């Protein structure tokens, strides 16, 4: 049995609105091995961010179980949850809004230490050790020492994202949910941050859940990819397998839609028509039915289950085998 750090079982999150239930996360299950990266891919509104936040219990799930290191975090008390937060952190998409504008770089990075006892010291000694730790982390993530007392608005997006990473790292977590950490950044900065995240993973044995809409990025960083559509995982496979042998028609459509920066490499797959329908009061049929180019009668007989069709390759489709 592999060393599983996270197991998610039938996770559901419905939001009640006036129009009906929004199925933001609908029956999501997966396991994640320690030290690996799971990429969650999907278009806006597919519930990938909600999934990430529900796993961290920043949003309370409607139902389902999330086992982190064998403990069901949906059932623990608030006090225990606070302790667990030390081990599971999040990096946000928007480095412009996820940092309190009134705090300096050092305050932002050191803040988590106030709520968790990481350093065994008190008084002056604690202050000094905290400072050393912050400076050490700033070096690790590539922030110059002179920025110690700078405010986030004085810095560019890349540097702000580095603060966000340092802030997540200071508690020495085991799992980090990266919610679109590079989508707000320019390509050259994006590559710097991706490399940093990879180095940190290698050095510290971190486990990542990497949420993104960018398939090229997830192809680069993930070991395994889960493709989400309207709140459910439609396909999940190791990264090479998914890119070379996509089975679900939605995955195929996504792959063929990526613009590739090479001439004559235009992937001439069909451009998928239609748009994502609203996730309110969904009919009991395949979520992708209305846009699917190969839909058949089976697709209307309830939501297809995620089945293992090849070793490690799961797909939720009634038609494709």
């Amino acid at each position, binding site marked *: 049995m592999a060393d599983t750090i996270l197991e998610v079982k039938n996770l559901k999150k419905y939001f009640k609105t006036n129009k009906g239930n929004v199925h933001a996360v609908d029956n999501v299950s997966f396991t994640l091995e320690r030290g690996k990266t799971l990429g969650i891919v999907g*278009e806006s509104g597919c519930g990938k961010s909600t999934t990430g936040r529900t796993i961290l219990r920043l949003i309370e799930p409607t139902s389902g179980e999330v086992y982190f290191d064998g403990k069901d975090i949906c059932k623990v008390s608030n006090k225990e949850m606070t302790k667990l937060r030390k081990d599971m952190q999040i990096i946000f998409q928007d480095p412009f809004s996820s940092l309190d504008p009134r705090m300096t770089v050092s305050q932002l990075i050191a803040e988590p230490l106030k709520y968790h006892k990481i350093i065994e010291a008190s008084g002056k000694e604690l202050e000094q050790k905290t400072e050393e730790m912050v400076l050490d982390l700033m070096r690790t993530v590539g922030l110059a020492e002179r920025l110690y007392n700078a405010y986030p608005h004085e810095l560019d997006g890349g540097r702000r994202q580095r603060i966000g990473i340092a802030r997540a790292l200071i508690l020495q977590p085991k799992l980090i949910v990266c919610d679109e950490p590079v989508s707000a950044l320019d390509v050259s900065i994006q590559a710097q941050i991706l490399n940093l995240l990879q180095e940190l993973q290698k050095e510290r044995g971190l486990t990542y859940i990497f949420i993104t809409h960018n398939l090229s990025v997830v192809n680069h960083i993930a070991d395994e990819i889960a493709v989400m559509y309207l709140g459910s995982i439609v396909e999940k496979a190791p990264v090479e397998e998914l890119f070379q042998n996509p089975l679900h028609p939605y995955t195929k459509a996504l792959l063929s839609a*990526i613009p590739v920066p*090479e001439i004559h490499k235009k992937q001439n797959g069909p451009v998928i028509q239609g748009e994502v329908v609203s996730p309110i009061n969904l009919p009991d049929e395949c979520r992708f039915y209305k846009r699917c180019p190969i839909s058949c009668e089976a697709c209307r007989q309830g939501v297809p289950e995620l089945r293992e069709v090849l070793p490690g390759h799961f797909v939720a489709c009634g038609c494709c085998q």
Partner: protein
Amino acid sequence: MKLNGKNGKSDTNLEQIREKTDLAVSVENLVVHYETSSETVEAVNSISFSLKKKRTLGLVGETGAGKTTAMLALMNMVPNPPGRIIEGEIRVNGLDMRKLTPAQLQHVRGSEIAMIFQDPMTSLNPVLTIGEQIGESILLHRNISKAEALKETQKLLERVGIDPERYGEYPHQFSGGMRQRVGIAIALACNPSVLIADEPTSALDVTIQAQILQMMRKLKEENDTSMILITHDLGVVAEMCDDVAVMYAGHIVEYGTLEEVFNKTKHPYTEGLFNSLPNINNRVEKLQPIQGLMPDPANLPKGCAFAERCPYASEACRENPPETHSFSDTHLAACTAYQDPDFRIGRNK
């Protein structure tokens, strides 16, 4: 009605000052600064480019490279103050945009050159129906009745792939992709011969992006439109463009046909961009990002702006502004290193 009459008059004026040319757009030595009491931001520093009729030019660069400012200057729409076009000649269909009167400019914008904006959420007015917003543009520029304008609007909607019966709906009733279609319909309302698209698909999902790009290609062919596409996505450039200009810190650092810039890359910055991108067809262990940050446009170095981040930079690069070398009739790169005839960047070895 009065307005139409006025436009009719300026129309004739326009023909008198129009220079005969086969270029849709030509820009010579354009310099745009943003001046505040404390500093001068050199947003665009002496750029020149031209766009032949029916072609698509991709303007590539990162945030702050000056792409959007250059395009605003093209329409003579740089917000003033603080922005100011210091010098340069801008011609659209042979018209010198800097010499037109405000009334003439108003006429040219929309009917000869139009813009598609990045964010379909904010570029539409939330209190007007989409039909009114498209029709407004038609009524402003063409001497037709309201009923005819409505018919035109519906035709346009059909062309951009929206059910024409939805003309009475408000922007919030449409999804992001649909709103961008509306934005495109507005830009196309008066059949402009030049279209500027400022990151038209950056805010959209990939499958929707693919739909919009496909539609834009189709419309461009149908109407013989020339287009300038501003983007940071080299993948979109590869799909859409004939020519490419790469901008960095207000300069065009490399300029050529798609094939030249992508397959015979000359400038180290362009190479850096390619190496920074995770490529879906070619998974590498580690990306090679460009180190460091773009210099502050209010405080540009005296030498090459890219020298600080450039792996090939020499002392000469930091001291003197870069020399422009041409590699073919169409291919230019502003890089001093090519003084040495044997110099090759890593990508070309």
